[in-house]
């Protein structure tokens, strides 16, 4: 009789930080089942389909792509095939090439991208230490750049700190939820649970979204805003709150600065003046503003619908302004919730995988802080902020001076050839970079441009700490022995560093963690032990004293993290989107998510149940009237074209989408929507404007050959990912 073990761990998919209770057959090294753990503070014993059924990729079923089994090098140059090599050879080759590039072009010619997913915080700390101490550059970044980077930057300016100010459980005790550009049902099902529970408890919901999402469906006020006009609405709401005397004057007086300047500028943004462009009724804007201001338990939640715009940072500030105006900060069940997408994207920010901050949000330009890290790491560090990863194409394709170009890209657990905007340009960029290292678990699209591929352990095969969206450090436990040939992410980068002449060695993740918290005051008290004893620790946790159990909500008593402790009102005028519709591209295009798959889909695409619910080539959601005028039927394959490129997908007419707007999810390789997206960046956060560009949809006359094309492409991809036709024989 095989003994099954029960192990608690944290889900590897979204940022809710659900605790999973896994039943593991240690004898056969297999997971038997996953259930929600009642020890999970955020999920209370429940999970979504990804947590419940998203683990069987660990059995390497080779549905979509293969686990990388051995290190590989493209020995004959960029177009030659990848050949399996030993770890020693791969490490030596990587170290030599990086050293040569540093010698010829300097350390700033190397870019590093860390992973916000499986590897975890300790591996993230090592990634930035590798780039800073070993390579010698601050060119380290991660996918928050294309996601909530705008939230971090925007909130920094207003309240001095860019994280969710409340905890996930508090959401269900809100009296008003202001949900703007956020689709919890699809991105964070267990956060959506809090929203629907709040509704049952009598909470009033204001939902701002161009589409009728699940939250919009149950909203008390649904503002079906025209995409790209967020600032107009936010400023108009502030206008109503101020002009109708709904402000919390005491709070403003005691805890904020620059109100009068702000109020003067806002005066022009009456609801009537923004109605036409936002496609909203002034009366509805007023209703929403009054409802927002009616409670001290108004929780604002936002996602990519605010941040993935060229005015993302400023719209984040506009959201925070509303909470400042109404005293909605610093106590239970209130505040701002930029709900961080991925399981550890909050963590990768915490660990300083950012070009301008060290672990714990300490500026690289601050000499005193830099000195501290130089002492700890026994090396001198660059004082210059590094390159955001969205500017890599510019530094490869359009930089005239070779000494200022990027010549190497070390990518850990990220798939830019799938998830970055303007994929044709990304492919060109990756082909032109002299040396590309991909450290990952599954073969993916970016591997096709890699000179070296290094196999890392996946979630389930290693330990670590993830930070949930609400700042909760939680222990991730190992479930299975890793595949032969894989090494842990942090171990790999330590080996490369040693081979490059900067020895890094740790026996386990706890050593790495303890080194990190000693350098980051905000996290200093968050030891492994305290995490275990308290079901996670929410930072800040300054003291190792057991009595300091972390901080559920921020800005208690209205004290903000700015230098003067006050919230700063920041006014910004409206800037429209960078690319609008025109006769050649008459529809707007926006990227969205699919609940059953996660991001670039290398994990969920290899989970047999998850891939059944949704598969290639995805679909483009369009208003039925638009489908009719193009003579498109539901399920028919169509071509979608933008100024950057084109893709093929299926037509999905739905009344939940307004006329003139189209939406695609970004999971698919064949129906790849990032072929179309705009790489224009927010100037402050360098986040691309994924949520708005122009496209046209074309009918494909020969549906039969289009279907055959899809089948052929799929076969093609699986072959390129190393899967033999017929799939794998199960041992």
């Amino acid at each position, binding site marked *: 009789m095989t003994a099954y073990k029960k192990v608690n761990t944290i889900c590897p998919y979204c940022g809710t930080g659900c605790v999973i209770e896994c039943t593991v057959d240690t004898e056969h090294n*297999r*997971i*038997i*089942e996953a259930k929600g753990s009642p020890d999970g503070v955020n*999920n209370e014993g*429940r*999970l*979504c*389909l990804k947590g*419940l*059924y998203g683990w*069987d990729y660990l*059995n390497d*079923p080779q*549905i979509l792509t293969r686990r990388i089994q051995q290190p590989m090098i493209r020995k004959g140059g960029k177009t030659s095939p990848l050949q399996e090599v030993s770890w020693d050879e791969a490490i030596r080759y990587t170290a030599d090439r990086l050293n040569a590039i540093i010698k010829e072009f300097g350390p700033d010619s190397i870019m590093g991208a860390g992973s916000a997913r499986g590897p975890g915080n300790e591996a993230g700390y090592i990634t930035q230490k590798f780039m800073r101490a070993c390579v010698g550059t601050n060119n380290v970044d991660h996918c928050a750049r294309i996601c909530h980077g705008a939230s971090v930057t925007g909130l920094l300016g207003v309240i001095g700190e860019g994280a969710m100010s409340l905890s996930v459980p508090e959401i269900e005790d809100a009296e008003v939820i202001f949900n703007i550009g956020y689709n*919890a*049902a*699809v991105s964070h*099902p*267990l956060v*959506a*649970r809090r929203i*629907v*529970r709040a*509704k*049952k408890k009598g909470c009033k919901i204001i939902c701002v979204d161009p589409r*009728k999402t*699940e939250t919009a*469906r*149950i909203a008390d006020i649904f503002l079906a805003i025209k995409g790209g006009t967020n600032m107009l609405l936010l400023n108009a709401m502030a206008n109503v709150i101020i002009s109708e005397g709904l402000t919390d004057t005491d709070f403003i007086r005691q805890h904020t600065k620059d109100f009068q300047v702000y109020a003067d500028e806002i005066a022009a943004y009456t609801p009537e003046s923004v109605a036409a462009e936002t496609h909203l009724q002034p009366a509805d804007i007023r209703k929403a503003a009054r409802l927002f201001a009616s409670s001290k338990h108004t929780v604002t939640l936002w996602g990519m619908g605010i941040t993935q715009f060229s005015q993302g940072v400023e719209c984040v500030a506009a959201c925070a302004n509303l909470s400042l105006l109404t005293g909605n900060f610093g106590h239970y069940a209130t505040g701002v919730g930029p709900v961080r997408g991925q399981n550890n994207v909050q963590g990768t920010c915490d660990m300083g995988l950012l070009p301008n901050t060290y672990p714990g949000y300490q500026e690289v330009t601050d000499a005193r802080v830099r000195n501290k890290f130089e002492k700890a790491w026994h090396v001198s560090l660059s004082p210059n902020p590094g390159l955001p990863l969205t500017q890599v194409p510019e530094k490869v394709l359009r930089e005239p001076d070779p000494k200022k170009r990027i010549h190497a890209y070390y990518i850990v657990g990220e798939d830019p050839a799938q998830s970055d905007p303007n994929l044709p340009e990304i492919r060109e960029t990756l082909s032109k970079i002299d040396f590309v290292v991909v450290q990952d678990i599954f073969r993916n699209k970016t591997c096709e441009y890699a000179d070296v591929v290094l196999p890392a352990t996946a979630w389930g095969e290693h330990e670590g700490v993830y930070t949930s969206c609400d700042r909760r450090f939680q222990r991730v436990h190992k479930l299975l022995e890793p595949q032969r040939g894989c090494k842990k992410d942090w171990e790999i980068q330590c080996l490369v560093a040693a081979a490059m002449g900067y020895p890094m060695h740790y026996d386990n993740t706890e050593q790495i963690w303890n080194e990190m918290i000693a350098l980051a005051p905000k996290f200093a008290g968050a030891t492994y032990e305290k995490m275990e004893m308290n079901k996670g620790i929410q930072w800040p946790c300054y003291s190792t004293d057991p009595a300091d159990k972390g901080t559920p909500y921020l800005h208690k008593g209205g004290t903000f993290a700015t230098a003067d402790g006050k919230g700063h009102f920041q006014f910004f005028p409206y800037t429209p989107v960078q690319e609008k519709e025109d006769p050649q591209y008459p529809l707007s295009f926006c990227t969205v998510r699919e*609940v*059953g798959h996660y991001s670039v889909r290398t994990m969920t695409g290899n989970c*047999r*149940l*998850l*891939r*059944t*619910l*949704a*598969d*290639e080539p995805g*679909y483009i959601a369009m208003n039925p009237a638009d489908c009719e005028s193009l003579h498109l039927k*539901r*399920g028919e394959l169509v071509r979608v074209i933008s100024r950057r490129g084109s893709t093929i997908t*299926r037509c*999905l007419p*739905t*009344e*939940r989408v307004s006329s003139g707007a189209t939406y695609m999810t970004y999971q698919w390789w064949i129906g790849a929507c990032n072929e179309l997206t705009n790489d224009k960046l927010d100037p402050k956060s360098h986040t691309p404007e994924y949520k708005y560009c122009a496209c046209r949809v074309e009918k494909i006359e020969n549906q039969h050959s289009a279907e055959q094309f*899809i*089948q052929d492409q*799929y*076969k093609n991809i699986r072959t390129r990912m190393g899967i033999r*036709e*017929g*799939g*794998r*024989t*199960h041992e």
Partner: protein
Amino acid sequence: MNKFIKADPILCIGCRTCMIACVVNHTGKRIFEIDPNSYDFNPRIHIVKNKNVTKPVQCHHCPKPKCLEACPFDVISLGKDSVILDEDRCTGCGFCAKACPFGAITMAEIYHPNKRVRAAAIPAPDIAAAIAIETTPAAPQEKGFFHNLSSLFGGGGKKGHKKASDVPEGTARPQPPVPSGKFSVRTIAYKCDLCAHTDTGQPACIPACPTEALSLVDPAVIAAQRAKLQAEKKAREGQSAQVKL
């Protein structure tokens, strides 16, 4: 009243976890070990979305079932506290699916008869051959591709079911080709069976739902609750009567 699963549309977020839980519970835990293309994905609960509503749709185990009335083969019957559809004897005619006012019955295409799904229409030797297919390397699996677009594009009442006249009772069917995934062996009416013949015997969708939108309506539990409330009311009235005295 029978037992049935109730869905709260306010709590439903359309994530379809319930649909997967249904398939996993009816197929068994081995579903994660067998070849990914060797089983059928036919949930008995479906998420339906229209302009204003998102909710799960599943059998209500009606006390006077329209499906029972419609079935020409007496395959549907009233159990102790549920409506039972005998999948072994179902011929796939589809009348019940058309009759159900909730659209809760789907005509499931069976490509992989295995020990969970009755393959009674296939003569005995072929059942063994069919089961053997499950554990050997699968044939090309492009089927997975287009297979469950139905869950996106509308769930109930699939076309393609055989009419009663195509399958005279008692006749062995023509041998289907070895299931390469391209031909279904049978079509069977699928509806919620309250997980009656599963390992757990308990509905799997209810504990799986992340927002707790699903619950079991159990007439016995309701009757007990009502009795308790009535007893409490009587006790209160008895007390106040005493006080008046």
